[in-house]
């Protein structure tokens, strides 16, 4: 639908931020996922986004998710000798996830999502106002 460009653009932003929220929640959910040292650690996902080229009017077409980057499969080695997955040295592999980074991402993704929703509301009000033109 090209009739309501501002809404479509905000829609693409909403999709990006929602994907980011989903990825962050998955990272947080797996922050304590322990694996044995001969397996790869859980890899945190980082969303990559890019701008969508516009339709020639000089205005961009929003944003889109272009891919995912993974954190290191090596993770961090931790000494937990009584863990069932521990090797003979008492080591296990924990994912390379920094909670402060994840919580900050969560906040940014949430704020970005809200901002795009605000754009949708403003655009809708503007279009509604345009419909009142010519009425007296």
């Amino acid at each position, binding site marked *: *639908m090209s*009739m*309501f460009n501002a*809404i*479509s653009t*905000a*829609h693409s932003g*909403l*999709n990006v931020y*929602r994907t980011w929220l989903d990825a962050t929640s998955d990272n947080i959910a797996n922050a304590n996922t322990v694996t044995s040292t001969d397996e790869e650690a859980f890899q945190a996902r980082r969303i990559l986004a890019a701008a969508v080229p516009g339709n020639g009017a000089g205005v961009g077409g929003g944003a889109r998710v272009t891919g995912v980057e993974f954190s290191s499969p090596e993770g961090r080695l931790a000494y937990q000798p009584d863990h069932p997955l521990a090797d003979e040295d008492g080591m296990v592999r924990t994912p390379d996830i920094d909670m402060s980074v994840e919580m900050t991402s969560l906040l940014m993704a949430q704020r970005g999502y809200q901002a795009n929703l605000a754009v*949708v509301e403003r655009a*809708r009000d503007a*279009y*509604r106002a345009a*419909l009142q033109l*010519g009425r007296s």
Partner: protein
Amino acid sequence: MVYDVTTASLHAALRGLSARRGVQAQNIANVDTANYLAQRVDFESALGSALDDVNRGSASAASVARTSPQTTTSLDPTRLNGNNVNLDDEFLAQEQTELAYSTVIEAMSAKFRLMRTAIKGQ
């Protein structure tokens, strides 16, 4: 003629938009139904080609009025339960459908206002 190409195309657009509104409500209602695939309504392409025919002179208002909205199944990736309804998409599409509906209603009222002026002759 009262039922000219303008009225017929606005009428077809209203029919398409209200079909779309129904499908969107159905998609939202089935957001957690396993194996449900989101439905989409397209009336713009049929209406557009009918209007092109009218412009070329090979069709009349009646053929514009006969166009009907097509419902297709969304090919978006599904979640684990086989469902591919996306609530953001549906709510934003509802917003756009509502705006388009108001716009078409506004155009139709303007058309009828013109006719009324012509009938009254003032």
